[in-house]
């Protein structure tokens, strides 16, 4: 009798596991691993994805999760080739991060064609949830509309009502300038002029001099990375800020502030959705992240990768399969989002993840008490106001 019971128990256990087959998930982190954007995304995003998997604890959900990484070198053709290879040969289920808008748009097309999932953290173009929106793509961390509105509105409100733009001469720069100029004019401000500079400009002094003589109160930097750093560094030298004009960094990351140094960057106003030193949860997470990335500080892109991967795994656990990308994305939209870094939030039908944004100001050197202590929060922009209203996006999925 006892033998029979134990046999039955074993059988039940066996059937039980057979009925609940293990779900395999493969996550591909694709970004710029060695170039210009390697610090804001790069290997740090891989670390963030690993932390998300650890916190999710796949074994407890009968899942097995594997992470792979690749370098798209900021080239759309390289990016879409990797995406195809990953989906067709390596059986990757979801691609995460992908900074550089042109690459992200290319990867979004491939993902839709293969019915997989694409979680954007590093790219900025708001087109990803606008005309180019896709049922397989979720735009997580930030976008150009949010940057323009956060910084633009705040500065006009505090008296910065005349603007001069230094704009990087390519799609991203034009979009950022267009969005910001619209915000400035709508808030009653005026755009006095603009100068378009080539990508990767070493010397900004000519442009700065033009901006200086325009007498605009705010100089808007519609560029990124090395261009923004050079402009601000040389702006300090030419006495721009000392002369009463103010820089508005429209896309500045915490890594850019570190490479400028507080002495040069102080006073700069910018918008981000996450900062490592904002609360205890963020600090605790940063500590874990730094165990693998010593001496560096995570950017909002890293935090976004963590948050997106965690929510994705929850959705897969609910649908019990990662095979149908559209179904997983629908599940992600149905589930409210919650994690320690972005708190509670949601995902809109157009694929836009909604959470608050923060207006930061860079501290003075004497205010900074430890490495990485660089921002003070000047304002919180509510989740509902931080991103473009869904009706203005022209996303075909929503309008039809």
């Amino acid at each position, binding site marked *: 009798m006892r033998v029979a019971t134990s046999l039955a128990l074993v059988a039940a256990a066996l059937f039980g596991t057979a009925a609940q087959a293990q779900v395999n998930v493969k996550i591909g982190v694709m970004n710029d691993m*060695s*170039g*210009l*954007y*390697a*610090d*804001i995304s*790069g290997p740090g995003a891989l670390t963030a994805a690993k932390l998300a998997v650890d916190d999710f604890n796949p074994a407890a959900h009968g899942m097995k999760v594997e992470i792979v990484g690749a370098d798209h070198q900021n080239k759309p053709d390289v990016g879409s080739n990797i995406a195809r290879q990953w989906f067709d040969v390596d059986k990757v289920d979801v691609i995460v991060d992908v900074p550089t808008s042109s690459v992200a748009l290319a990867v979004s097309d491939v993902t839709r064609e293969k019915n997989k999932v694409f979680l954007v953290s590093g790219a900025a173009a708001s087109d990803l949830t606008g005309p180019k929106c896709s049922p397989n793509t979720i735009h997580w961390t930030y976008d150009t509309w949010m940057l323009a509105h956060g910084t633009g509105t705040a500065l006009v409100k505090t008296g910065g009502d005349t603007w001069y733009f230094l704009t990087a*001469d390519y799609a991203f720069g034009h979009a950022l300038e267009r969005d910001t100029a619209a915000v400035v004019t709508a808030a009653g401000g005026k755009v006095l002029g603009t*100068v*378009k*500079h*080539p990508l*990767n*400009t*070493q*010397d900004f*002094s*000519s*442009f700065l*001099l*033009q901006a*200086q*003589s325009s007498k605009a109160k705010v100089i808007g930097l519609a560029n990124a*990375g*090395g261009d923004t*750093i*050079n402009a601000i*560094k*040389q702006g300090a*030298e*030419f*006495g721009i800020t000392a*002369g009463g004009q103010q820089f508005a960094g429209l896309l500045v*990351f915490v*890594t*850019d502030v*570190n*490479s*400028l*140094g507080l*002495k*040069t960057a102080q006073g700069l106003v910018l918008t981000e959705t996450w900062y490592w030193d904002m609360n205890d949860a963020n600090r605790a997470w940063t500590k874990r992240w730094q165990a693998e990335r010593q001496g*560096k500080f995570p950017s909002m892109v890293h935090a976004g990768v963590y948050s997106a991967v965690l929510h994705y795994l929850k959705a897969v656990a609910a649908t019990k399969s990662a095979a149908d990308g559209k179904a997983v994305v629908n599940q992600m939209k149905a589930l409210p989002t919650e994690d320690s870094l972005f708190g509670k939030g949601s995902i809109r039908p157009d694929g836009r993840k909604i959470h608050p944004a923060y207006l930061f100001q860079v501290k003075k050197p004497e205010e900074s008490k430890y490495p990485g202590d660089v921002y003070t929060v000047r304002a919180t922009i509510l989740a509902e106001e931080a991103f473009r209203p869904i009706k203005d996006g022209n996303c075909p999925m929503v309008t039809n």
Partner: protein
Amino acid sequence: MFEVFGVPSQALFGQLLLGLINGSFYALLSLGLAVIFGMLNIINFTHGAQYMMGAFAAFLLLRHTGIGYWPSLVIVPIVIGAVGAGIERVFLKRIQKLDHLYGLILTFGLALIIEGLFRNYYGSSGQPYGVPESLQGGRNLGFMFLPNYRAWVIAFSFLVCLATWYAIERTRLGSYLRAATENPALVRAFGINVPRMVTLTYGFGVGLAGLAGVMAAPIYNVSPQMGSDIIIVVFAVVVIGGMGSIMGAIVTGFTLGIVEGLTKVFFPEASNTVIFMIMIIVLLIRPAGLFGRMA
């Protein structure tokens, strides 16, 4: 007050001066390239990486030992020059008798490796380096605000360029060097150690790149890719001036800085390409460059 094509003269003077300042970096870098090519027939593609190493060396000295800008201005070119001399001894010496292209590929490969190493250790977003205390601030010239540091850059690089030109074209040592380029066997017969002279010359050219790096650190972003951003322009400057011509490199460096500066006023979008358009025109009309001699 008068206007040129709708641009007030004051603004124009400002831009001319700024162009001259940028031109001094072009001149310093292309001068090093011209010395190396003119004397050793090596197309030194590592030059950009060596310029970047100069800026990083200044940054590392400041961070780890507290040594500031002024001592760096002396120490860094010597250190970078010594590294260059080492590269010459270990690599370039072995391919001396081969075609130019081998040297080009070797130095290009070295540049990629050096850049990759720095990116691996220091990341891609750059390091902070401030303007030295004594040169902070600036003065109002009436038509523009000139930062003191920029004034220093223009004066100092002009001096370095002149001194180099004088040393090579007008001194006894320079004449040995030029003779050694023409006919190494004969010069060696006079009891002059030609290989050592070659090593030192390469080291000197590389030292000039290091010096330019230190001078650039306070105003440009000190990042691993700063060299590859500028090296292509500098090569265009050397080609326009005439490969290997010392005076050509100096004069074209300053002139093209001014041309680029003016482009930034009248048609900013083209400011990255204007130098290459000039290069094409010069190559069509005078293939040996403005100051070059036909081979």
